[in-house]
C-alpha cells in the first residue's frame, strides 16, 4: 500500500494540471478620479457579480470608534438624495438580483448578483451611494440597535466566539487586528452621526475603492458603464493608511475564559506570522500555506491522523493560515477535546505537532499531497464567480494585488521540505504564541462566579 501511494505521488508531481492562475483572464483600468475597475470574464452562465471594495475596516479604527466601519456599512442601505431608505434593496430585488454587504478587518464591500444585462442598474446605485449618502439620526438610532442585536447573535450568546474575540484582543496587543470587526459595546454606544459622517467622507472616495466585476460581460462595456456612473464623482483625497502590525514576538500569552454556558472546552493557539502583504519574501507565505495543509488538508492530514485517530485526545482539530491580510496575521491551531480529555492534553498534543514540524522534514508524499490539494482547491474555486471576485477584491484591498494569483501555482510548487521546517522554526515560536482556552464552569447551576462578562446585559 505505502509503496503504491508513493508512486502515485511521484506521478502526480508531474501530471497535476496547472491550476487557476493560468486561466485568469482579467482586464483592469483606473478612472480619472482614481477608481480602479477590474473585470474577470466568466461566460459559463448569463450572470454577473459586482463588488465595490473600500479600503476601510476595523483595522483602520482606533479605540473609541471600533465598529464604525461596520455600522457605516449598515447605514449605506438607508438612502440617498435620490433613493429613499431600503429602495436600493427593492430595486435590485425587482430586477431579479441579490445584494448585500460585508465588513472585515481590511475592507468594507458591497455586492450585487444579477442577470449580466442588468449590471448597469447595480453600478448606478453603487455610484449614487458612494457619494450621496444621507445619514439620518432616527435611522441611525434604529440601526445601532440592529447592530447590537447582530453582536448578541454572533458573539455575546456564543461561548466560542466570545472566547475568540478576547483571544484576538490578547494575541494582537498593539495591532488593530485586536479589535472585533463589529466593535466593542462601549464604542458602539458612544458612536455618533458626526463620527459616521467623517468616516464616510474620508474613506468613501473613488481613489480608495475598487470595483470588481466577474461574469458574462465584456470588459470594455464594463469600463464604459463604470465611467458613466462613477466617473462624475470627485476624486477626493486618498486617505492615509492606518495601523501597523506592532510587535512581532511580544512573548507568550494565555487567556482562559470560564463560561458557565459552555458545555464543551475549546483550545486555540495562535502564532503571529507575516501575511502576503507584510512578508519579506513570498516564499515564507507559500511555505506557511503548505504547512497548514500538511496539518489540516483533510481527514488524512496530520492533525486528524494524530490527535483525533491515533492519540484520540481530540474530537476535532484544525489549523488555519489565510495570508490575504494587510497586516501581520495569526497562524492558528485549534481543537475540541474528545470526552474524557482536557484542554491541557490538547495543548500538549498541538505543541507536539509543532515540534514535529520543527524537528524533522515532512516526507515527499506528504508534501506532494498538500500541494496537490492546494492546487486542486484553487482550480475548484473557479466554480464560483462570487469567490473569484472575492479573491481579486481582497488581494487588491490588502495591497497584495490580484496579479499574485499568477504566482500562486509556481509559489506552491516551489515549497521544499526544508522551507516548511524553516518557517516552522522561525515563526511557530513561544514568543509569538497566544494560547486561548474556553472552560465550561464546573458547577453550571451556581452564579456566584458570575457569567463570563456579557458586555451589554439588558
Amino acid at each position, binding site marked *: 500500500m505505502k509503496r503504491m501511494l508513493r508512486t502515485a505521488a511521484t506521478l502526480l508531481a508531474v501530471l497535476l494540471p496547472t491550476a487557476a492562475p493560468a*486561466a485568469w483572464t482579467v482586464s483592469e483600468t483606473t478612472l480619472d478620479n482614481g477608481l480602479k475597475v477590474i473585470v474577470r470574464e466568466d461566460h*459559463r*452562465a448569463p450572470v454577473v457579480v459586482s463588488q465595490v471594495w473600500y479600503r476601510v475596516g476595523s483595522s483602520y479604527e482606533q479605540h473609541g470608534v471600533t465598529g464604525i466601519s461596520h455600522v457605516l456599512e449598515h447605514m449605506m442601505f438607508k438612502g440617498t438624495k435620490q433613493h429613499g431608505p431600503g429602495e436600493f434593496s427593492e430595486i435590485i430585488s425587482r430586477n431579479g438580483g441579490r445584494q448585500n454587504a460585508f465588513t472585515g478587518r481590511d475592507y468594507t464591500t458591497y455586492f450585487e448578483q444579477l442577470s449580466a444585462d442588468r449590471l448597469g442598474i447595480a453600478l448606478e446605485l453603487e455610484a449614487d451611494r458612494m457619494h450621496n449618502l444621507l445619514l439620518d439620526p432616527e435611522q441611525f438610532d434604529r440601526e445601532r440597535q440592529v447592530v447590537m442585536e447582530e453582536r448578541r447573535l454572533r458573539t455575546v450568546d456564543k461561548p466560542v466566539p466570545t472566547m475568540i474575540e478576547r483571544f484576538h484582543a490578547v494575541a494582537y496587543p498593539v495591532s488593530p487586528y485586536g479589535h472585533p470587526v463589529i466593535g466593542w459595546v462601549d464604542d458602539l454606544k458612544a458612536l455618533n452621526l458626526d463620527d459616521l459622517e467623517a468616516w464616510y467622507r474620508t474613506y468613501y472616495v473613488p481613489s480608495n475603492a475598487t470595483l470588481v466585476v466577474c461574469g458574462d460581460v465584456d470588459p470594455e462595456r464594463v469600463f464604459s458603464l463604470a465611467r458613466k456612473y462613477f466617473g462624475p464623482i470627485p476624486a477626493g483625497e486618498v486617505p492615509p493608511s492606518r495601523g501597523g502590525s506592532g510587535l512581532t514576538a511580544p512573548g507568550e500569552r494565555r487567556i482562559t475564559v470560564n463560561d458557565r454556558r459552555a458545555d464543551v472546552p475549546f483550545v486555540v493557539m495562535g502564532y503571529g506570522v507575516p501575511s502576503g502583504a507584510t512578508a519579506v519574501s513570498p516564499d515564507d507565505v507559500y511555505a506557511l500555506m503548505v504547512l497548514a495543509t500538511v496539518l489540516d488538508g483533510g481527514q488524512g492530514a496530520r492533525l486528524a491522523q494524530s490527535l483525533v485517530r491515533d492519540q484520540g485526545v481530540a474530537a476535532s482539530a484544525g489549523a488555519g493560515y489565510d495570508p490575504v491580510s494587510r497586516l501581520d496575521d495569526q497562524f492558528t491551531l485549534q481543537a475540541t477535546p474528545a470526552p474524557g480529555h482536557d484542554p491541557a492534553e490538547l495543548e500538549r498534543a498541538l505543541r507536539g505537532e509543532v515540534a514535529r514540524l520543527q524537528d524533522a522534514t515532512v516526507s515527499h508524499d506528504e508534501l506532494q*499531497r498538500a500541494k496537490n490539494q492546494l492546487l486542486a482547491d484553487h482550480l475548484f474555486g473557479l466554480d464560483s464567480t462570487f469567490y473569484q471576485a472575492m479573491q481579486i477584491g481582497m488581494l487588491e484591498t490588502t495591497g497584495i494585488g490580484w496579479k499574485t494569483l499568477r504566482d500562486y501555482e509556481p509559489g506552491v510548487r516551489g515549497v521544499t521540505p526544508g522551507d516548511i521546517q524553516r518557517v516552522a522554526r522561525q515563526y511557530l515560536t513561544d514568543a509569538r504564541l497566544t494560547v486561548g482556552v474556553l472552560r465550561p464552569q464546573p458547577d453550571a447551576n451556581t452564579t456566584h462566579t458570575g457569567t463570563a462578562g456579557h458586555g451589554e446585559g439588558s
Partner: protein
Amino acid sequence: MRPALTGVCMLLLTALCAGRAQATPTIQSWRTDSGARVMFVRTTALPIIDVRLTFDAGSARDGDHAGLATLTNGLLLEGTERMDAGEIAGRFEQYGARVSNDSARDMATVSVRSLAAADKLDPVVAHFADVLAHPSFPKAAVERVRKQMLVSLREDRQSPSALADRAFARAVFGDHPYASPPDGTVHSVRALERAEVVGFHDRYYVARNAVVAIVGDVTRDRAESIAARITGGLVGGKHAPALPPVKPLDNARTVRIPFDSAQTHVLMGEPSVSRSSPDYFPLYVANHVLGGNGLVSILSGQMREKRGLSYSTYSTVAPAAAGGRFEVGTQVRNAKLDEALDVLKGTIAEFHDDGPTAAQLKASKQNITGSFPLNLDSNRDLTGYIAMIGFYDLPLDYLATFRDRIEAVSERDATVALRRHVHPQRMVTVLVGPADVIGAKR
C-alpha cells in the same frame, strides 16, 4: 516547466470560451444495471467533476434509534477491510479530490469533487467505488464517531439556536419520524450498536435506494461508466418505503426552554407542504413576500427596518418527502420579546387574512424568476439541484419550467395556498431565553 504550463493554460482558456452555458442546463437521466437512478449535466468550462450519491437513508429511517442514520453515514469513509480511515482519506487527497458526507431527515449523501483529467479521475472513481462497496465499520471507528456525535450534542446545548431547532421539529412533527433529531440524543447515541449500523447500511445503502448526480466535464459515456462503477459494488436491494404523511397540528402550543442568553430565540410555525404538492409554488411565492426575500420582505421590514428589534427575521417553507414545515424565526433582546411576538403574530395574521397585494406578488415573482439563473451558475449549485430533482422524483424539465410555474401563480392561488397551509391560530411557538423572560418555570 513553463511551456507545459502554457499549453494547459491555453486549453483551459479555450474551454472557458467554448463552454458558454445556456440559462437552463439539460438534465440527462438513466438507471444503472444495479438499479440506481442517475442524473447528469455536462458542463465543459472547467476541468472538474462533482459526483454525489444520495440515499433515502436520512433520520426519517431511524425508527427507535435516533442518530443511527447519522452514525451510519459518518462511518462510510472510516474503514474498509483493507484500508483504515487515514488511508482512505489520504488516497483522495493525493489526487486533490475533496470527499464529504452528510445526513439530514430525508437524505443521506456522500460526495466527491475531483479534477476531470482521466489520470486523476480514474483512480479517484475506483477508490470511491471501493470504499463505498466495502465499508467495514471498524469498532474503533464506531466508538470515535459516536464520541464526536456526543461532543456535537453537547455543543448544541450551549447554542440557543440549536436548542430551538430541535424543540421546533419535535413540536411540529409530533409522532412523525421527522420529529426525531438527526443527530440523536445523548441517551440514544450512547445506546447505538455496531450491529444496528450494519443492518441500517444493508437495508438502505443499496443501489435501488440511490440517486447518483454527476456534473462536470465528462461525456455521457464516461458518466455512464462512472455511475456504473460507483454503484456496481452496492447490493441492488429495494427502495425505502414511502413515509407516512406529516399530520397537521390540532392546537397552538408554546415550548419554553430556559437559557442564559442576551437574546431570546423565537421559532413559530407548523407542518407544511411536501415537495410534490401542487400548492408548493403558490405557497413559495406567498412566503417570499412574507419573509423569504431578506430585507425586502414584510417580516424584516416590520421587525428590523421599522423597529430595530432584530438583526434577522425570516420565514421559510421547507418541503420534504412526506410533508414539510413552515417556519418563522428571529432573535430579539430579552426586553423586547413581548413586542416582537406581537409584531410577528400580527404580521402573520394580517398577511394570512389579506394575502399579498398585486404589487407585492409582482415584485416577488420578478425577483424569483430573475434570480433563478443565479441558482444554476456553478457546478456545485447544479449538483445540488439535480440530486434533489432525482431524489424527489420531480420532472426532468423542472429547471426549464421553473420560471413558468412561478409566473403562473395568481394572486388568488397565493391567497388560497396561504389560507390552506398557514394557520395563525394553531402554530407551535418555541422560545429559548432566560426563564423569567420566557415565562418558564425553572
